[in-house]
């Protein structure tokens, strides 16, 4: 158990953690100034017989200083944060070669669609959704959908390669969240939202649903597997073979 942030497992983690540290330093200094100041004042200026308070209505110079310094600090913080925000979530932020994975959220499961050998995700249509048989509404008539593989509650990604998730929801608002990737995005019914990340450390992680979505919200968990590219290709082939054989019982 760490008292700090979770392990860093994506390219976003280091800059976000750095931002956290920077803000912690700024707010930490303020915190110490205020709290130590309060303790000092409470001791130094406690009432004692014969003492009189110093009658003053204020000091304009002090006001200017303690308005300007916070204001300037906040503006600098805002301007320097914006670059990172645009890089992560901006409209043109998704890298061109990002590997596409479909993530379909529903009460209370995550369904992941992998593009198969053709590297393209097939079309989905909510009307085609059928429990067990077609949980994501994949339109099998679309050629790009023929080799798509749909898996419940398991996200597999290759390490060191940008992945772009297309996030959809079947019913209510859910939220796709992997703490070690520092990635979070709400899945909204009626919207198809793209969110990208690049995993950097092979291993197992978890997706937790991060927006109250009903009584079993807490159980809406998926496991995340970050593979080396070779492991990933092998896994994908294995799944494709399973999918072919699964049509007969």
């Amino acid at each position, binding site marked *: *158990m760490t*008292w*700090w*942030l*979770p392990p860093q497992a994506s390219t976003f983690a280091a800059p*976000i953690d750095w*931002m*956290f540290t920077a*803000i912690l330093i700024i*707010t930490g200094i*303020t915190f110490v100034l*205020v709290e130590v*100041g*309060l303790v000092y*004042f*409470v001791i130094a*200026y*406690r*009432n*004692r017989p014969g*003492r009189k*308070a*110093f*009658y*003053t*209505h*204020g*000091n304009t110079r002090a006001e200017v200083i303690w*308005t300007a310094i*916070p*204001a300037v600090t*906040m*503006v600098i*913080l*805002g301007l320097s*944060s*914006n670059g990172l*925000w645009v890089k992560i*979530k901006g409209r043109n932020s998704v890298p061109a070669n990002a590997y596409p994975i479909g993530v379909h959220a529903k*009460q209370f499961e995550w369904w992941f669609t992998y593009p198969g050998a053709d590297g393209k995700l097939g079309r989905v249509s909510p009307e085609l959704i059928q429990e067990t048989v077609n949980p994501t509404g994949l339109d099998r008539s679309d050629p790009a959908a023929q080799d798509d593989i749909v898996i419940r509650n398991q996200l597999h990604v290759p390490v060191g390669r940008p992945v772009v998730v297309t996030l959809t929801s079947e019913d*209510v*608002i859910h939220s796709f969240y992997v703490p070690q990737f*520092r990635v*979070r*995005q*709400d899945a*909204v*019914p009626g*919207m198809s939202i793209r969110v990208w990340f690049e995993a950097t450390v092979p291993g197992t*992680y978890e997706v937790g*649903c*991060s*927006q*109250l979505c*009903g*009584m079993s*919200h*807490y*159980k809406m*968990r998926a496991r995340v597997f970050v593979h080396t590219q070779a492991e990933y290709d092998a896994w994908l082939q294995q799944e494709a073979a399973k999918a072919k054989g699964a049509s007969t019982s």
Partner: protein
Amino acid sequence: MSTVAATAHAVHAHHDDRSFVRKYVFSTDHKIIGIQFLFLSLFSLLVGGVLAMQIRWQEGFPGQPMPGGKLLPETMASGGVLLPEYYIELVTMHGTFMVFFAIMLLLVGVYANFLIPLKLGAHDMAFPRINMASFWSAFVAGILMFASMFVPEGAARAGWTMYTPLSARHDLSGSSLGQELWSISIIFFGLSSVLGSLNYISTVINNRAPGMTWFRMPLSVWALFITAILGLLAVPVLAGAAIMLLFEQILGTHFFDPGAGGQALLWQHLFWFFGHPEVYILILPAMGMVSDLVANGSRKPIFGYHSMVFAICGIAFLGWIVWGHHMFVSGMNPTLGSTFMVSTLLIAVPSAIKVFNWMGTMWRGNIQFHTPMLNAIGFVAMFTIGGLSGIFMAATPLDMFIHDTYFIVAHLHYVLFGGSLFAIFGAIPYWYPKMFGRLMSDRWGKVHFYLTFLFYNLTFFPMHITGMAGHMRRIYDPTVYDFLKPYQPMNEFISISAFLLFATQIIFFVNFWWSLFKGEKAPLNPWHDNGLEWTLPSPAPHGNWETPPTVYRGPYEFSAPGVSEDYLPQNRKLPTDREPALAPAHGD
């Protein structure tokens, strides 16, 4: 003219022949209405606390039968183990009761009503009967909300933020009548709030005593005035959204239904457009009252009175343009993430100004540590933490990570409990003598403060740590996640601290009730304060003054040179004072 003669002239007990019902039940007297709000809101605070205890039991000890759990019906807890749907109801109702029925009513319903006419030298509010309607609609709202917990399928289940489509679809949430009662209750609550705001604004503008200029008003009144404007403009948005939600729930409309041309995000924009000004409604009156308490406790004028007024206005103004910071990862246009980040970071500035000014007030003061002052200092210390933690979430890339985690829960409890509630724990004993004619025990007030301060920090500070770890909000069983299992001992620690925190409040409640009957009888001005209310008997009589007092100075003239006492009431005329040229406004 001497003080004594002026007082005797101003206070004249006039004949009061109202019936018991007119005096204490359907009263138009702002002071009685304030006290009625006090009982309603203290009850709601207790309800909110009991709900919180159950939440913390489940969070700290998931899957274990709760003590007393077997008394709950099978639909809430099976064999004493809380059910997930009940847990979500607890979370929803805790937020709803605390935000609307406890804090908002305590700060605005109680103190706007009680203090505004008294501190301005008015007989009553501008519209006393509308004021009475404001209380009774809040009361109806409270009954409906309380009842919603006991209907079939239980209370509303989408969090106090009620995001659609979950809140609109009974088949998806599992709750039906409870959800609808929430909407109806909020509509009544909105009505109450708007009626109140109308009164507070009109009274401040029109009913000030001669000499009570804008910049001689106490900061508590300024804060309540600005808050009333916020309420007047923001609360109708909530009521409107609640009406739309109710239509969605019972009439089958499709405002929020993407399958039929609606938008799920519409609710969030409407709710947070109300919701952000709302949180300033929940803090500004507290800040205003804390200013009164800190000046009094330090025996010094407020440092930077004008800056404080502008800071209140600045917070209120900026509060309208930051609502999107609740929605950074909602799926709204990412460009809005940039704009809302800037406005949100800027709103830290007026809050910082206020903290520094409170410190400036204490600097070189002669500090009395009575219970109200202790709580006011506690406010400054804890609100600082809450405000600083807000900066983390204002930075949008960082908010991507901490949104909907316990870091947010820590932040909101530091500002609402560490902030607003400590201010309330200071305000209640402070104005208690003027309400009830008795004093609360200062010794037990101090014990309550120190224990509350301790257990409160032990409960909420660790939530920053679990939030940093990624602990999501509103989850029934954190041990489902491998990455959260190591934090379960911390969750237990938080829960046990919370139980002790709740138990400590017994001291406050006993002190409050006992003092009503057995408390030391209060003198006219127990705190040696300057406000106009302290020139009236304790408790203040119906109609307050026969003739409004005349005001010669601001409210914070403590330790003024040329005066032997360390306070100088607003209405005390010194040889150097001139009569005000004109009454600022008429309307008595």
